[in-house]
């Protein structure tokens, strides 16, 4: 599809060079580990809005929302995107305040305080696996191919490599600053894209006329079970390590609360426009402007290439790259912190200096990038990997963190360890079992296995693993006769 003009390539080149420059500028400016990992706990509301939004809106949202909008219509927003805003509100008003009450630096820090070192290490491993940038690197491979005509592995190495360089050198300051540039780029370009798309298809009324009425049915024809599953993926925000990192990096709780409340309007608008643009792509296919065989996940890019003029298209593509870079950099940094601060320091070198921690975090960032790269080139079905990574965090640390946070008498070391350990173990085992013994259903885009006469899809694993984590927790509460931790 690489039908870009010279000006588009220049814009993309300037954007990529700018990202690296920010990282290099910050390379030697960190005074200590807290400055490197949490930007000195000085993020203001605007910085929090930009870094939160750009981190959560990766390519999976861009193409996941648009794919559903292309095939099903507005249900992509009402059924898939909208429930997550409720979790953002819960995070703003019920969670963030509690997290700011202590001097935490990372998610495993919380587990350590509530349940001790063993649970900390399980949480650190879970957070590290969850933060591996396999999906982002896979996305870069796809973007390099679609936008620039590169082999996927070249896109992963060059585009993913740029994000790696500025994260390694600049730490959280570079991540937050590049996120802010990426935020404005992706939002403004998306807003500008709407009138161009309408011009291409003959206006909004044409869309209503051409598409089937079901495209405007707010709940579409999705089953209630699938809607519950989609909605429950939003739970991950409540235990997402990059989200926690931003809460810890904020100047105050009020900054976090305000950023989340304002952010919901921008998140909602972003999701809605993606959905409408994808529906415009469907109209373009019906009208013959786009080919009939356009893949649903590439529909958004295709309609933008057809609608946007030279220059604007380069900005849009830079915005798409931004969407993914801002996700990769944040997760790599968290994974690096898990290695250095959550495992290396408490387990091997409690007296490690800040400079040693920064050095080890950088090594951890590199390790996570390399492991993510190996996964990205090894897995055939990235959707299966996505489900695995999304479920691992909810299944392992959600129960001990939330119960420990709100019921201090439950803070028994055995409870935390059993809950996190059994949740992690069962998620890994069940996912591997289904991905190796199940069949990948191309239509449903998921692994399916026959269990007791029913089609059990990979997404349903959380219905088993979360109860396992919960049972493990209460078994621990009952059998641990000691006092609550602390």
């Amino acid at each position, binding site marked *: 599809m690489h039908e870009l003009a010279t000006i588009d390539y220049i814009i993309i080149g300037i954007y990529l060079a700018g990202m690296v420059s920010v990282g290099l500028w910050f390379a030697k400016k960190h005074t200590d580990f807290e400055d490197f990992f949490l930007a000195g706990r000085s993020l*203001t509301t605007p910085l929090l809005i930009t870094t939160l939004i750009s981190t959560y809106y990766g390519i999976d949202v861009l193409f996941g929302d648009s794919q559903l909008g292309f095939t099903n219509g507005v249900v992509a927003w009402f059924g898939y995107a909208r429930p997550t805003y409720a979790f953002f509100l819960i995070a703003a008003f019920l969670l963030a305040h509690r997290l700011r009450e202590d001097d935490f630096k990372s998610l495993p820090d919380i587990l350590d305080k509530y349940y001790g070192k063993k649970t900390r290490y399980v949480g650190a491993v879970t957070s590290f696996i969850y933060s591996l940038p396999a999906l982002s690197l896979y996305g870069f491979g796809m973007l390099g191919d679609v936008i620039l005509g590169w082999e996927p592995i070249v896109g992963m190495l060059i585009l993913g490599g740029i994000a790696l360089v500025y994260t390694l050198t600049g730490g959280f300051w570079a991540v937050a600053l590049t996120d802010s540039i990426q935020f404005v780029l992706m939002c*403004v370009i998306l807003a500008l894209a709407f009138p161009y798309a309408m011009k291409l298809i003959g206006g909004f009324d044409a869309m209503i006329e051409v598409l089937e009425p079901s495209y405007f049915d707010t709940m579409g024809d999705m089953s209630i079970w699938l809607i519950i599953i989609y909605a429950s993926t939003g739970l991950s925000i409540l235990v997402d390590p990059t989200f926690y990192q931003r809460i810890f990096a904020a100047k105050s709780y009020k900054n976090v609360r305000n950023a989340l409340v304002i952010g919901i309007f921008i998140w909602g608008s972003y999701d809605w*426009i993606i959905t409408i643009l994808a529906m415009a792509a469907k109209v373009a296919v019906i009208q013959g402007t786009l080919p009939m065989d356009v893949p649903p996940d590439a529909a958004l890019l295709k309609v933008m290439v057809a609608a946007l003029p030279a220059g604007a298209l380069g900005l849009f593509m830079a915005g798409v790259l931004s969407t993914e870079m801002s996700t990769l950099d944040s997760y790599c940094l968290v994974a690096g912190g898990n290695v250095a601060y959550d495992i290396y320091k408490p387990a091997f070198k409690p007296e490690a200096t800040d400079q040693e921690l920064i050095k080890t975090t950088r090594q951890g960032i590199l390790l996570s990038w390399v492991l993510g790269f190996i996964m990205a080139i090894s897995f055939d079905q990235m959707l299966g990997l996505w489900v695995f990574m999304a479920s691992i965090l909810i299944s392992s640390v959600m129960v001990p963190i939330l119960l420990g946070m709100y019921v201090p008498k439950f803070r028994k070391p055995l409870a935390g360890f059993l809950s996190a350990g059994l949740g992690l173990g069962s998620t890994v085992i069940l996912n591997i079992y289904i991905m190796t013994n199940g069949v990948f259903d191309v239509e449903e885009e998921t692994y399916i296995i026959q269990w007791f006469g029913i089609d059990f899809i990979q997404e349903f694993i959380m219905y088993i693993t979360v109860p396992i984590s919960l049972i493990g927790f209460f078994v621990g509460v009952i059998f641990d006769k000691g006092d609550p931790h602390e």
Partner: protein
Amino acid sequence: MSNWEIFTWITVVILGLGSVVVFILFLKDIKEILKKFNKEEK
């Protein structure tokens, strides 16, 4: 103009103008932060 279209234009305004306003506020904050870095360096 349908309700769907009106809603979409509202989201366009929120996304376009909202993000620019947030970015301007961000630039204001970042000036102070960069000044702090430059001072520490000196």
